[in-house]
């Protein structure tokens, strides 16, 4: 399975979906013009990865600094995919935030609250 790598822009995060390493990472801001269209390839990749190519352990690192409302909706959908895959795969999620960034901290807490079965670590940036 091919890796999917998207370089970050002013409005979108750096995205690295590495099937060989079992590593998924999103770092940066998320204000795409059309959020669902932008993230569709990422969602498709995730579905295919868990269907056929998942490693023994998958690590998801998310460090989203700023994001619009449709991005938060999309992250819920993204966590839904992880939640479903959880039954068959070992997944660890790191939600990385800056302690000055209240919105990012709160968003992480929301995900923990909503996805009790997922392992979500709140990681404060040093």
């Amino acid at each position, binding site marked *: 399975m091919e890796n999917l790598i998207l370089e970050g822009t002013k409005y979108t995060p750096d995205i690295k979906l590495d099937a060989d390493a079992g590593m998924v990472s999103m770092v940066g801001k998320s204000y795409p013009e059309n959020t669902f269209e932008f993230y569709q390839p990422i969602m498709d990749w995730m579905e295919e990865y868990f269907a056929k190519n998942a490693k023994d352990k998958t690590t998801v690192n998310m460090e989203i600094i700023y994001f*619009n*409302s449709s991005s938060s*909706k999309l992250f819920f959908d993204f966590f839904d995919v992880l939640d479903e895959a959880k039954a068959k795969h070992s997944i660890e999620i790191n939600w990385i935030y800056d302690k000055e960034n209240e*919105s990012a901290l709160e968003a992480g807490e929301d995900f923990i609250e909503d996805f009790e079965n997922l392992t979500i670590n709140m990681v404060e940036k040093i």
Partner: protein
Amino acid sequence: MIGAEDKLTQELDELKVNFSHTIDKLSKDLKRQNKIMARSDTRQRKEYDELQLKLKEVEYLSAEIEETQREVVFTMGAIGERRSKETGNHVKRVAEYTYLFAKYYGLPEKECIMLKQASPMHDIGKVAIPDAILNKPARFTPEEFEIMKEHAQLGYDMLKHSNRSLLKMASIVAYEHHEKWNGKGYPHGTQGEDIHIYGRITAIADVFDALGSARVYKPAWDDEKIFKLFKEERGEHFDPKLIDIFFTHLDEFLVIRNKLKDI
């Protein structure tokens, strides 16, 4: 019959389960949506507050920059004035006169205000003229006069490199305030409307004030003598339109002169 009823009950039960799943999912989605909305409202409020704060800062800084420019320009004008031992309020009066001329000539208000701020620098080039010539209490020899005339070019050279609109304007004023409408001025002998309006305005404002003030080499002229000269120089030394403005609004020019007279 019994079999058919059982089947129906079974189907209904399945429907019930499906229905309840769908309801659960919908209600979960709805809760999420509400949460997202609430969070994003809070975030937007915070971002709005931050933006307002930044805007205030930018406004404060712009005002600060403009004020600094004004002060620098005015101080430079004052330096030039002090060195050539002009009378105390000369540049202030010239500033006010240029504003009036600009206003009645029809320049936009913002430009009039800028000209008022830039025109005090018209003689800044004099800082590079030797004292012995600058303050000579008698008529210049032709050689001295040639050196004296250099102050227009010198002032322009000092200011022309700036990209600041106010200093650019000041460079034009310094350069062209000794040009004459008939082309007999200096440094270039530029004619008519080829002389920038800032130069034409500062020329008449400067001469009006200089004639009415006592200098080391001459007493102050009385008004009749000044008005006579202005009429003669209409379309010669000065832009005819500006002479007309001067006489039409004479009372306003005299109010300024009175308010800012030298003690």
